[in-house]
């Protein structure tokens, strides 16, 4: 997993670590033995092979791009320095400079519209460090990017996250219906029967001894659940998880939701909707997103998010919260002394009324609130249940959703109870490597009884991403764990507003996309995943 071990926080080492083998061994075609060969290097540094008859043939340079290293970091090119130089604040400074020159020389062709999208988790991290509220941080960031640096728009990915949530929920409802139609109904009935029996046992005070199942029973769950791919549905917003799944567990890929992540939804909004609205070519827009981790850089550079037609990426550059802080230093800016600017760009989730302005987010975990939103929507659409709390984990006494914490704080189970007491939906969160292991193992062996799992690579959720601002306190004052809790609570101070109530988004959606089940909607709002196949043709890659 392309996650540098240098980013691991003390006491919290549950990150997916760099792997040990390169997934792209150089393929050397074995040709007939033509005896010794001669290699020549010309002045430009190109290599030529000189064959016996004196003819030269240019040798292809073996190259490994950032894209190849999507899920692998076992070698030199995975060094942090490469990641950082390819998407860094240096790049942004470069674009800003080109803009300045373009204006000076009156050359509009060199000018690019600069758009900055800020994630609420990065905002919370800065807010916790500088002891401010998220709204204050946002306003200062608007000042920093627009007025100090010269960017044109500053957006909040909480806005585009609503798109991601709606699309994920829509996909879930479709999958669930398909699943029920293809044998799921029987399965659910059987599981509910089991639940009822367990309940009965518990009441009777009896405990049937657990018989160890034989190996033959492994595939004999009697339901063929190993073959159906609709359930469980797994979250896709975390590129760390997606890259790991693509590389190591290709079998679970059909379970990952096709809906794009908030970052990429914003990319589509900017390079498709905004571009056409402002009559700008997508390649004349430079889109920077501020994210809590380094894996978002890899996500932005996926070929699936490259618009070939315009030769541009949906998100051009990802900067981590830590890199933004470095920018403050490089620009000699004292963040807490910055004035606050107005948030007037369209893709933000704030409301201004006569008295004050408020920032809004989404209910649920700091990783986006996927589980909570999909649960509510599914309950409504599938079972006509309307009283699911927006955040069941904080409403412990409600009878509608039972929340159980699993083996550790990063695993939680959510059970939707029907009026008759039957469990209708089983959801779970799984953050961190060890919990991902367990979910993947269950899915692969067909023993996963969940319908949706919010899988995230970082223990503690996105507020604990590898690119967030590290604990500025010494361990005695505030431990690393407590620092993460603090960032999480700052994150939660932003009240949640359901995507359905995001009027701006609704009107944009109607205007821009129209029919959610159309091919155009799928093309703009969904993506694909590709299992990485290891070609073991290279004898040098043999392990023994």
């Amino acid at each position, binding site marked *: 997993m392309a996650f540098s071990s240098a980013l691991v926080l003390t006491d919290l080492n549950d990150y997916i670590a760099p792997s040990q083998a390169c997934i792209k061994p150089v393929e050397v075609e074995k040709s007939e033995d033509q005896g010794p060969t001669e290699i020549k290097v010309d002045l430009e540094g190109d290599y030529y092979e000189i064959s016996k008859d004196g003819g030269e043939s240019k040798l292809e340079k073996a190259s490994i791009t950032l894209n190849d290293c999507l899920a692998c970091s076992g070698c030199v090119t995975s060094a942090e320095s490469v990641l950082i130089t390819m998407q860094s604040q240096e790049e942004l400074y470069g674009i800003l400079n080109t803009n300045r020159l373009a204006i000076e020389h009156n050359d509009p062709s060199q000018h690019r519209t600069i758009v900055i999208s800020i994630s609420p988790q990065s905002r919370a991290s800065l807010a916790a460090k500088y002891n401010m509220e998220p709204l204050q941080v946002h306003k200062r960031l608007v000042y920093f990017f627009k007025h100090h640096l010269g960017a044109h728009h500053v957006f909040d990915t909480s806005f585009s996250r609503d798109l991601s949530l709606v699309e994920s929920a829509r996909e879930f409802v479709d999958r669930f219906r398909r699943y029920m139609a293809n044998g799921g109904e029987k399965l659910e009935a059987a599981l509910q029967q089991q639940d009822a029996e367990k309940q009965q046992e518990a009441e009777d005070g009896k405990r049937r001894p657990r018989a160890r199942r034989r190996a033959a029973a492994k595939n004999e769950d009697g339901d063929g659940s190993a073959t159906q791919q609709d359930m469980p549905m797994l979250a896709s917003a975390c590129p760390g998880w997606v890259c790991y799944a693509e590389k190591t567990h290709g079998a679970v890929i059909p379970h990952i939701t096709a809906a794009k992540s908030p970052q990429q939804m914003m990319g589509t909004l900017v390079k498709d909707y905004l571009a056409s609205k402002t009559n700008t070519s997508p390649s004349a827009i430079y889109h920077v997103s501020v994210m809590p981790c380094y894996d978002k850089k890899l996500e932005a550079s996926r070929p699936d998010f490259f618009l070939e037609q315009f030769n541009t990426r949906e998100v051009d550059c990802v900067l981590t919260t830590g890199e933004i802080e470095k920018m403050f230093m490089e620009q000699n800016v004292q963040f807490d002394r910055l004035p606050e600017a107005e948030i007037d760009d369209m893709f933000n989730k704030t409301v201004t009324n006569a008295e004050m302005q408020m920032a809004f987010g989404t209910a649920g975990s700091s990783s986006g609130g996927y589980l909570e939103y999909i649960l509510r929507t599914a309950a409504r659409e599938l079972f006509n249940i309307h009283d699911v709390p927006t955040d069941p984990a904080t409403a412990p006494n409600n009878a509608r959703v039972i929340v159980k914490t699993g*083996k550790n704080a990063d695993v939680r189970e959510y059970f939707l109870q029907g009026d008759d007491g039957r469990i209708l939906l089983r959801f779970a969160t799984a953050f961190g490597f060890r919990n991902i292991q367990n979910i993947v193992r269950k899915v692969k062996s067909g023993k996963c009884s969940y319908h949706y799992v919010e899988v995230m690579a970082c223990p503690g959720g996105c507020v604990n991403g590898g690119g967030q601002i590290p604990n500025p306190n010494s361990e005695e004052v505030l431990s690393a764990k407590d620092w993460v809790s603090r960032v999480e609570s700052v994150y939660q101070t932003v009240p949640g507003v359901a995507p359905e109530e995001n009027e701006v988004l609704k009107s944009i959606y109607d205007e821009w996309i129209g029919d959610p089940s159309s091919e155009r909607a799928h093309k703009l709002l969904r993506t694909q995943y590709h299992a990485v196949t290891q070609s073991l043709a290279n004898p040098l890659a043999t392990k023994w």
Partner: protein
Amino acid sequence: MPRLELVAELEGHQDRVWQAIWHPTKTILATCSGDKTVRLWAPASHSDMSSWQCIHTLDGGHKRTIRSVAWSPSGNEMATASFDATTGIWEHDMRENDWECVATLEGHENEIKSVAWSSSGQLLATCSRDKSVWIWEVESDNDFECLSVLQEHSQDVKMVAWHPHQEILASASYDDTIKIWREDDDDWYCSDTLQGHTSTVWALDFDASGDQIVSASDDQTLRIWKMYKPNNAQGIPTPSNDPTYRTVCTLSGYHGRCIYSVSWSKVNNHIASASGDNTIRVFTQTAGGDEPAWEAVATIKDAHGVHDINNVTWFPTQQHGDWLATAGDDGVARIWRLVQDD
């Protein structure tokens, strides 16, 4: 002077034998081999201990060498660690007197070097060339949940061993260190790093109390480490309020090559070591306290001929407390007895 006497030779494997591990309570030996099988051996009759037969062969569970095998404390289950990056869990069916592979744990990226079952039977640990140590919890119906993936070693981890009564794990690595792992509220962490060896640490073992560890290294020495609790009388600092380990004795000059395996008898407190110099040595303690002294009392040269000796293990109970099992690259497992000549 005591000496080691050959009791039996167990032949049958088609490739090198990596480990020879005793059943926790019965007189049964499990051997795992490069031929991808595990064999269980028992004496042909109660009266004649020199003739052993293979009573079971566990086959078909792995695609590559089985590097390590571990019995559960009850003796009804076994875990096999393989170079194919999976750990097999086998269960003994008493009715059919057969062993069956009931689960395969995946997750490691490459060769698994060692597997160990905790004394409670609740936890399993595996370690691998991918530098990580995994801790699994045994659930009912043959499900194993991954509790933690510990990635603090900087190189290949060669061996893991559990404390004899507590859920504390020790791991030995190519990075020349031993790490001690503890659990704090569902999170496993490294509570101590034992430095001192100047090369790969191949093996380690706890003493019967769990307060001491013996380690075997490529630097041709054995080290005895003693645990010091916080606020100990000797004034040894314990950072982060966890017990720490210090070397109290180094046994050097006894082996001329890498020491691959070491075993601390839980019955008679002897230490046995096996080395690439083809000898097995037995040590007894001659002085205790904070500066213990150990003396080499028995040696067998060329125990497996010209072949490396991969593993040495003492019999775990009083019944045959003077027995040692060894496994070698010659494909043979041998049982030896420490005879006290008086």
